């Protein structure tokens, strides 16, 4: 270090000269942009931020497949999927607003911090105009907050907590997926007609925003049909082993176990509950039953035979026979060799809805998109007629009540649709107490 002489003044001088030199040929671009990451080239970049590790990694992988498929369809590759059945015909398979759709991916790790870092890098480094994804409501809410600050659109993927479009709603965030309130409203009558009014429920709940929300909604609706709640126990997200939480269930006098778990948590807790022989027990003269309020085909696959006869609700199922669902299942199946999950479906829809809104608005400006999506009514995306409500940016559509199939014909044919609960039955007022306390604010175009 002593070979060359260097004094403070010299370093300061050379630093100043270097700085001035670099600043000379500057083209100031920040002022030229009307909104964050306005695409100036031939491409528009979308950011797909999904869990690739953690308890929801399976859902994340399927979401990513759906996003890639959606991008193909938007760019006119493949068979077009649900673009052909979508009620809005603005998109022609030649990109969006004349620009080819490109994408970047990131790993949320099912952690809010990591998800935000990943989304930040998509916005700041890759120039994404829209971030979508998230399994886990905690992550979705965190990223939604970031997108609001940064001035990009957030199209929520698989997030089921009331809070996403309730107390944590944001003007730049939109959710196609249903929520726990809708699950409760759809499941209540089915549970009543199948299991009667005299039951005692024991909740095991994933300890974060979605779990709390799900537990609250299930309590509301089961108690309204006369059920008692024995206890509600919170379990850490990604616990792996649930035996310590399951042991007290049988001694509590409860005859119904409600598993407010999702992803691998649900696979593990349900499998262990079945291994404990719970479903063979008779308590209070009732057969012991298990209810899984939020179901997915991926989870059913993970839990195998254990799901037979178990009720739950789902946003979408691949066995639906409307034109949109058939088209989607066909193009997804052709590309990947198996049917899509509900996570894949909602992510695919969100991408299409965003692209369509941008096309209709003629811009990628978040405020234009917000305007185009608020109060938007559409059909042909597999759920029947759907409304994007302006007050809270939540989609309203029928909810499926499903049951684990007793005699599955294939490894994917695990759930049967018991009931399609019409939209009116799951509709709630924007100022419903479970959704109160939030404020959309105004759209933020950033820059």
């Amino acid at each position, binding site marked *: 270090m002593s070979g060359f002489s260097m004094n403070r003044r010299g370093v300061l001088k050379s630093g100043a000269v270097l700085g001035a030199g670099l600043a000379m040929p500057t083209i100031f671009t920040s002022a030229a942009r009307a909104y964050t990451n306005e695409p100036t080239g031939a491409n528009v970049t979308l950011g797909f931020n999904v869990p690739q590790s953690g308890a929801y990694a399976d859902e994340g992988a399927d979401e990513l497949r759906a996003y890639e498929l959606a991008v193909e369809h938007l760019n006119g590759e493949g068979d077009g999927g649900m673009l052909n059945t979508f009620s809005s015909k603005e998109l022609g398979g030649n990109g969006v607003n004349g620009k080819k759709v490109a994408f970047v991916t990131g790993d949320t790790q099912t952690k809010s911090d990591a998800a935000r870092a990943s989304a930040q*890098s998509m916005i700041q480094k890759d120039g994404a105009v829209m971030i979508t994804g998230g399994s886990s409501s905690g992550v979705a809410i965190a990223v939604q907050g970031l997108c609001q600050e940064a001035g990009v659109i957030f199209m929520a993927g698989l997030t089921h907590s009331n809070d996403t479009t309730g107390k944590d709603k944001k003007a730049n965030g939109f959710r196609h997926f249903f929520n726990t309130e809708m699950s409760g409203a759809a499941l209540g009558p089915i549970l009543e007609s199948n299991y009667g009014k005299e039951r005692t429920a024991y909740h095991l709940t994933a300890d974060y925003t979605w779990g709390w929300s799900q537990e609250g909604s299930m309590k509301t609706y089961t108690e309204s049909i006369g059920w008692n709640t024995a206890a509600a126990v919170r379990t850490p997200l990604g616990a792996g082993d649930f035996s310590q939480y399951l042991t007290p269930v049988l001694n509590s006098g409860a005859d119904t176990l409600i598993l407010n778990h999702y992803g691998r948590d649900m696979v593990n807790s349900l499998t262990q509950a079945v291994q404990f022989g719970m479903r063979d027990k008779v308590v209070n003269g009732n057969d012991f039953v298990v209810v899984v309020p939020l179901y997915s085909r991926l989870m059913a696959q993970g839990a195998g035979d254990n799901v037979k006869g178990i009720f739950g609700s789902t946003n979408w199922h691949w066995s639906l026979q409307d034109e949109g669902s058939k088209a989607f299942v066909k193009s997804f199946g052709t590309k990947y060799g198996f049917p899509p999950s509900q996570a894949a479906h909602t992510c695919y829809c969100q991408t299409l809805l965003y692209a369509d809104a941008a096309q209709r608005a003629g811009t990628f400006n978040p405020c234009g998109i917000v305007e185009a999506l608020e109060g938007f009514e559409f059909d042909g995306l597999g759920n029947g007629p759907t409304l994007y409500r302006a007050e809270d940016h939540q989609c309203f559509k029928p909810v499926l009540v499903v049951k684990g199939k007793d005699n599955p014909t294939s490894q994917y044919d695990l759930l049967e649709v018991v009931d399609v609960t019409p939209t009116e039955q799951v509709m709630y007022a924007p100022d419903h107490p479970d959704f109160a306390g939030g404020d959309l604010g105004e759209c933020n175009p950033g820059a």
Partner: protein
Amino acid sequence: MTDTKRNDVILLLVVAFFALFAPIILNPFPSDGPLAQFNAGYPDLMQRFVIYGIFAIGFNILFGLTGYLSFGHAAFLGVGSYSAVWMFKLLSMNIIPAIVLGVLISGLFALVIGFISLRRSGIYFSILTLAFAQMSYNLAYSVFTPITNGETGLQILLSDPRILDAPTGTAQPVTSLFGLEMRDTFLAFEYLGRDFQFTYGYYVCAIILLISFYISMRIFRSPFGTMLRAVKTNQNRLSYTGVNTRPYTLTAFVISGMYAGLAGALLACMDPLAGAERMQWTASGEVVLMTILGGAGTLLGPVLGAGFIKYFENILSRINDNVLEAWFAFMPDGMSDFFVVIVHPFVGKGWHLTLGLMFMAVVIFLPGGLMDGAKRIIDWVSGKNRASKRGAKAPAPAE
């Protein structure tokens, strides 16, 4: 000027140069070129480099000087973040009160935890700090949810009181330093196909890093620092000579906790969200890795280690199969597939594997961390190596 003093000034200037010009230095590749993937010069990542650098500098004051290995430093990081976000919610979006409260509260926290944990040394101390940190994590995750908002993380809402600020109406409030918004880009330009972005947030962090680095340097050179080194070298001998080491170690622990709190508060200032996972043991382990990777007990090492790990976390983890296919597209079909399969486990979600291998390589071949490597290169270039090979090699820390 003595030799050490002169070297310190040079070191500080070098750090200042890299910190101030990082937005340019870290963007060596054209933004639409094939290597743009490896650019790290965007504000969020640079802020992380700097903030985790501060975190590691603070950790090094404890671990590098006294040898006490704390496995629970993330607790202070989390406490700093929560305090800062509460300041944003209650008082003002100005970052000054948030940083001050973050540092103070984590200092208090460190005082309590340090007072108890420092009754033991060695592995028992590590386990105690780990236990406290895990306890804090679990409390933040599920018990104190009204304060911490659990897994979702504490966020800023429109409805927060913020008694010093004028209401923003329906626009989301943003963190600022007397009107300079942290996420605001004050200069952005394109030069030779490279996109350069300069944000206020990064420069606030960079200046705080320089101050922190300077303070740490003064501590290293002070009699207090010498005392801490004595604790590391032989605590028993100190006790036998009648020195009570506890006040020294406790002070080091609290200073180090305050550094962590400062880093946590800065994280919240740059991105106003505090999540419980910031306190998890993996986060505590990360700062240990950073310090050891860079070189424990050296001034610059921890900062390098922090940058190294954050770079891998954010750059390597975002290389997916599509990117790999594009890289190997020039090869014949079968061969490119083969290479994609070979490289796949090491990038994307497998970045931990690469980091692990690197860490092993560093620990085995460069026991003194990256600084050791740098020193060996400098010695080799200047020819010192050949001379010192004959004689006993002085175990001087590489600085």
